């Protein structure tokens, strides 16, 4: 029965065997839904005698993107930033930097060396984030590979192996082996023949065997993928013992272990050489004299055909009016700044929840992880620190900066602690993975985004559940995305359905620019190709 399966039949089959997500992804692979493409806004060049003016509030990635594109098109742009630095949450901490946490200012005392930095906000650039990749290229930001999953890192769960850390390669190799064995056993030949041609069934089964490194009897009996117990180069390799599958089921890390190298955190990931804020510095280079720092915005008023902004700087009050305002001030802070926005717009701003993410880092006195074959990657633990990140850069140098906690969910556990408690907690929990952690680490810093001055929050959260946005939430989202008074755009990753990524911040700025261009009469371009 070598019948050709039609596309619809395949989708039905996948839907029967998998989830709707399987169908969605398969649809993309078959070219049925569009993928995101580099989609720079096309902005008609401004009339030099009558340049539209734009005041941009906040020099985060979205504000910088808007300023860069509009400035290039001849618009008259200024950027007003509350902080003494640009970048918002795109923030790299180095020697001497003051971490401006409300009630807990810290000074970073890392060694003053180019590789001794900590990306306190975004730290990964997926290669598929092509708009951000575009700006890295355009702004001359040198990139290097970031390593997310490393098979030599650890999983540590108090419930598994008596709390002893286990190497990623042992956990994933054994998990895949056992899962493949189950998969191989779960279909009879007759069942497979019913859904697939002989050729397809063979392809599927050979993939399942290879997925788990099964033996000829479709059984998992261990694999060299978990590393050698001994030998393997000059002498015969000795295989490690198979671990009890039930032991692996004591942890909830299997899902993390098998998915951390997939999707947006899958290869290839990049980081800018020298710190994520090299992107910010690139924008700053391209926008000389356009960005003003230490600005306290005191009022934002729609005036019918533009926006009036008042601000204070250095004890003096100023007023500026512009045709447009692009505003990436966090919505939860904008609600405290006097404005005359429509009430439903303010309601939407009030609804968005503040993100709580927390990160901390230590300077390592020596790169102890390299003694353990670890070069980059992430260790996972079930303790509140959740993760330890090893730097993929600075290989074999004397020291390195290690991420000692990343609570990307409810980061309030650490946020609530004093600075001393935060660091001590990170050491105690890190010791469960690296016994000499206390002796090997120093000069800790912590970033509780919920309390960072001028931000008071990490990535915005629109949805109150994992089930996605409700109809009401989606209505508010579109209310806030649309320009207030046709002139004031709220931008940033906060106006995206995929918050916490720089790509979203860029695309939110693009959305606003495209909307503005359309309202100004479009690009003037006719559809189709001109015939000469």
């Amino acid at each position, binding site marked *: 029965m070598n019948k050709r399966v039609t596309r619809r039949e395949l989708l039905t089959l996948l839907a029967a065997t998998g989830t709707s997500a399987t169908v969605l992804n398969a649809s993309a692979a078959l070219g049925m839904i569009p993928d995101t493409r580099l989609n720079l806004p096309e902005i008609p060049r401004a009339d030099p005698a009558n340049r539209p003016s734009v005041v941009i509030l906040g020099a985060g990635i979205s504000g910088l993107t808007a300023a860069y594109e509009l400035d290039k098109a001849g618009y008259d742009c200024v950027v007003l930033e509350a902080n003494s630095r640009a970048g918002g949450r795109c923030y790299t901490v180095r020697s001497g930097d003051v971490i401006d946490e409300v009630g807990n200012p810290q000074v970073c005392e890392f060694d003053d060396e180019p590789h001794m930095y900590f990306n306190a906000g975004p730290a990964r650039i997926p290669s598929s984030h092509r708009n951000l990749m575009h700006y890295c290229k355009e702004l001359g930001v040198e990139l290097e590979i970031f390593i997310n999953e490393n098979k030599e890192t650890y999983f540590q769960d108090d419930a598994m192996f008596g709390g002893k850390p286990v190497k990623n390669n042992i956990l994933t190799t054994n998990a895949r082996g056992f899962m493949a064995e189950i998969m191989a056993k779960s279909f009879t030949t007759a069942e497979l023949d019913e859904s697939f041609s002989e050729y397809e069934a063979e392809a599927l089964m050979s993939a399942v065997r290879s997925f788990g490194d099964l033996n000829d009897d479709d059984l998992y009996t261990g694999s060299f993928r978990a590393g050698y117990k001994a030998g393997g180069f000059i002498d015969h390799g000795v295989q490690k013992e198979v671990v009890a599958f039930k032991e692996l089921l004591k942890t909830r890390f299997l899902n993390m272990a098998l998915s951390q190298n997939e999707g947006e955190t899958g290869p290839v990931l990049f980081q800018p050489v020298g710190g994520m804020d090299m992107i910010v510095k690139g924008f700053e280079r391209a926008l000389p004299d356009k960005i003003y720092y230490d600005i306290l915005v005191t009022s934002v008023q729609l005036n019918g055909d533009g926006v009036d902004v008042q601000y204070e*700087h250095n004890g003096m009050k100023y007023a500026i009016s512009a045709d447009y305002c692009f505003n990436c001030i966090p919505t939860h802070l904008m609600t*405290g700044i*006097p404005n005359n926005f429509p009430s439903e717009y303010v309601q939407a701003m009030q609804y968005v929840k503040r993100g709580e993410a927390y990160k901390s880092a230590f300077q390592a006195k020596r790169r102890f992880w390299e003694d353990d074959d670890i070069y980059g990657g992430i260790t996972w633990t079930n303790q509140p620190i959740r993760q330890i990140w090893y730097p993929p850069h600075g290989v074999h140098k004397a020291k390195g900066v290690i991420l000692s906690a990343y609570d990307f969910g409810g980061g309030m556990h650490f946020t609530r602690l004093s600075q*001393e408690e935060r660091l001590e907690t990170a050491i105690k929990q890190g010791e469960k993975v690296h016994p000499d952690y206390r002796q090997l680490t120093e000069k800790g810093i912590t970033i509780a985004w919920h309390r960072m001055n*001028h931000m008071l929050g990490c990535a915005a959260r629109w949805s109150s559940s994992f089930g996605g946005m409700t109809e009401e939430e989606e209505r508010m989202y579109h209310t806030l995305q649309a320009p207030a008074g046709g002139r004031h755009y709220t931008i940033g990753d906060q106006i995206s359905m995929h918050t916490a990524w720089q790509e979203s911040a860029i695309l939110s700025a693009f959305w606003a620019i495209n909307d503005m261009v359309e309202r100004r009469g479009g690009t003037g371009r006719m559809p189709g190709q001109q015939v000469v």
Partner: protein
Amino acid sequence: MKSRNYLALLLLAGAALTQTVSAQQYEAFHLAGLNLAERVCATCHGPNGKGNPIVGGPRLADIEPWYLRNQLIGFRSEFRGTQKDYIPGYEMQDSVARMSDAEIEEVVAYISSWSASPNAPTITGNTNRGSELYVSCAACHGIEGQGNEALAAPGLTEKDDWYLFRQLNLFKSGYRGSHPEDQWGQQMRASVGVLETSQDINDVLAYINTLGS
């Protein structure tokens, strides 16, 4: 002068951490002359003290300087901000933890210059019932809710109703007004018993919202 005071504050704050802070490091922070209230208070309370319930920052505009001073001292002495699972409260504690009396005076003087139009009421209730319940409040806070410094009873009309709602509940639950050093708070904790239910609180706040206009 103001920025130098802030520098001193930061130096004090830094000294309590494991790291020590050099003057050059703060120069790198370049404060650009912004004073403490502008740099820190405004983030939560809004640039003119209009308040921002979204981040738990109550309105400070038009607040009495003596009451503001008492509260800052209260947060510094840790008899305010005692509900540990309420972030804004201990944010306030940390923010004033290492402030000197002189720095508190500086902040009080600056914030006293803040003024703003009243915020819209957020609480609904029966104002008739509220006016009856308010009789016992009026003894200290005044018939028009204007306050009475001699009794350390603050004015109520310029304060946000959501903030008053929260404070009344804190007094009722003992998070506020239980500390032995907080004599005025103890007085209020003893008085708040007349408001027995949340309906009582809503009604009295609805009535307070009608005062002072």
